[in-house]
């Protein structure tokens, strides 16, 4: 909602202004009327990031996001570890979406080393990554609920997420950081009786998330707080390079699972959810619709999956790539398109590894969305961008 701001030039101030500002924080002296407010870096939501917000009364006139507090040097670390030992640390940026954050790396290394993956392993990967997408979105939704002061919406997704975490634990042996995907397939086969348990729990999960409509998405209080706030037009969404749910909420039909199918996504029937509004409400609703689509994909994959067969190709110890061979692979993660650029050398370690992450690309839109908004709308706009600080800093 854009409102007429009072012009600061009309106001005469006789008081001498304070000349001293704490150094090193990037603060700058502005008009007396305008106040600079630091949000963070101590957890503005999830993860450490600072927003330098300039406010005039209750209205935001400028916002400068300051990421970089949780930089871990993942890209440099990857140059000192071989292709297999890179797996545990590369899934750390987004531990709730750890299969999807590892997926492009594994696809890229397979192309560099020339590995052919068994058919069953591809289906297991699709199931694992769709379950992980739901786990990530449920966590995101829980935080979105508590950002808006809706504690029921914190409790319900956090509880229902357990159904899928239980499935991932049966499948991979770990609740959060699975380290399940490896170049050449997945690390272990599905446990006996998994298909039946998976189908039952996914069906119940879908029934549960549909109940969120009455309590959250059709709730007039949520609609009044998110509708028409932080509107990102279709042109701006494309121009700023946003991806994932942010792009789809602005009316662009773009999903890498459909546009550039990897593994067996081309054999599955996928529907892309698109909304035209581009406001915080649309951006919060698209991930919820994506979860239902993920449940559909899991059901299809369970049906089409070969019932037996190998899930992993046996590799030589310390596999080596060719000299200066490079590959760029990307997948649709819970937040948007996530890509890895990997350059191989004649060594067991990659020569260079670059992550192109969706969180950082979605953050670029934040200063444009917050201009002219009320300060109270900041959390709903900020978290609707599907931003994950640790992933952006890598």
């Amino acid at each position, binding site marked *: 909602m854009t409102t007429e701001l009072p012009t600061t030039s009309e106001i005469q101030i006789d008081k001498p202004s304070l000349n001293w500002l704490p150094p090193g924080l990037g603060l700058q002296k502005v008009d007396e009327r305008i106040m600079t407010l630091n949000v963070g870096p101590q957890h503005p939501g999830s993860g450490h990031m600072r927003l330098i917000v300039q406010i005039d009364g209750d209205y935001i006139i400028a916002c400068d996001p300051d990421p970089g507090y949780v930089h871990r040097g993942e890209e440099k670390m990857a140059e*000192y*570890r*071989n292709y*297999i*030992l*890179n*797996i*545990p*640390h590369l899934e750390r940026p987004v531990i709730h979406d750890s299969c999807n954050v590892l997926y492009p790396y594994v696809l890229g290394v397979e192309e560099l080393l020339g590995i052919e993956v068994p058919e069953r392993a591809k289906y297991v990967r699709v199931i694992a990554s769709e379950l992980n997408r739901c786990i990530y979105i449920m966590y995101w939704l829980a935080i979105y609920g508590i950002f808006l002061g809706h504690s*029921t919406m914190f409790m319900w997704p956090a*509880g*229902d997420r*357990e*159904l899928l975490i*239980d499935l991932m*634990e*049966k*499948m*991979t*042996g*770990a609740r959060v*950081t699975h*380290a399940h995907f490896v170049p050449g397939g997945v*690390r*272990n*086969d*599905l*446990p*006996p009786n998994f298909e039946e348990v998976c189908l*039952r*729990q996914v069906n*119940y999960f879908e029934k549960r998330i549909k*109940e969120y409509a*009455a*309590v*959250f998405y*059709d*709730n*007039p*209080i949520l*609609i009044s707080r998110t509708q028409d706030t932080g509107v990102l037009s279709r042109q701006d969404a494309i121009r700023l390079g946003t991806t994932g749910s942010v792009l789809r909420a602005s009316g662009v039909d773009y999903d890498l699972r459909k546009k550039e199918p990897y593994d067996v996504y081309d054999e599955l029937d996928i529907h892309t959810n698109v909304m035209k509004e581009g406001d915080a409400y649309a951006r919060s609703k698209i991930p919820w619709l994506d979860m239902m689509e993920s449940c559909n994909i899991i059901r299809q994959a369970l049906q089409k999956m070969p019932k037996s067969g*190998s*899930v*992993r*190709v*046996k*590799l030589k110890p310390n596999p080596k790539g060719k000299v200066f061979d490079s590959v760029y692979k990307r997948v649709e993660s819970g937040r948007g398109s996530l890509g890895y650029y990997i350059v191989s050398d004649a060594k067991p370690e990659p020569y260079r590894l670059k992550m192109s992450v969706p969180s950082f690309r979605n953050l670029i839109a934040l200063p444009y969305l917050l201009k002219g908004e009320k300060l109270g709308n900041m959390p709903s706009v900020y978290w609707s961008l599907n931003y994950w600080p640790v992933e952006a800093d890598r």
Partner: protein
Amino acid sequence: MGTATGIIRALNSGIKHLAIKRFTLRYPEEKLKFVGDGYQFDPSTGVGIAGLKGRHLLFHDHCTGCQLCSIACEGVAEAIAMVKVPEEHKHNKKAIMPQIDYGKCVFCGLCVDACPFYALYMTNDYELSSFSKEGLIYTPAQLQVKPYVQQDSEIKITDRGASHG
């Protein structure tokens, strides 16, 4: 839909949940059930066996002291150190065996994948808390013990909702 109707619908949706079962797991009294006896790996086929990645289990009679688990862990967590075992307990020529520091271990299980002699597996034991840092370091003798893990509750789905029961 009017504002009042919407709010009443939201409240009604919450009130309905008074009737459904409690999903919460009452942890120390009841514990989750896992598939299998923990993550294991078959080096002949190169595929693992599904199970929880918990505390390790070391088979002294299979361990040759080849250090492959320790080398695998160097790039991940540096949790595994090869230590001398007393001569009377020695099962291999070098008399060295892995000792695992669970203050550092990330439970990725790549050490199990690295072992070619069926000597290192993982178990369902996940309750490893200790009052001291030294208590988290498991010697080869401690790793040899097969843990007893209480497992009694599973997710059950009925018409009245899901529960751990």
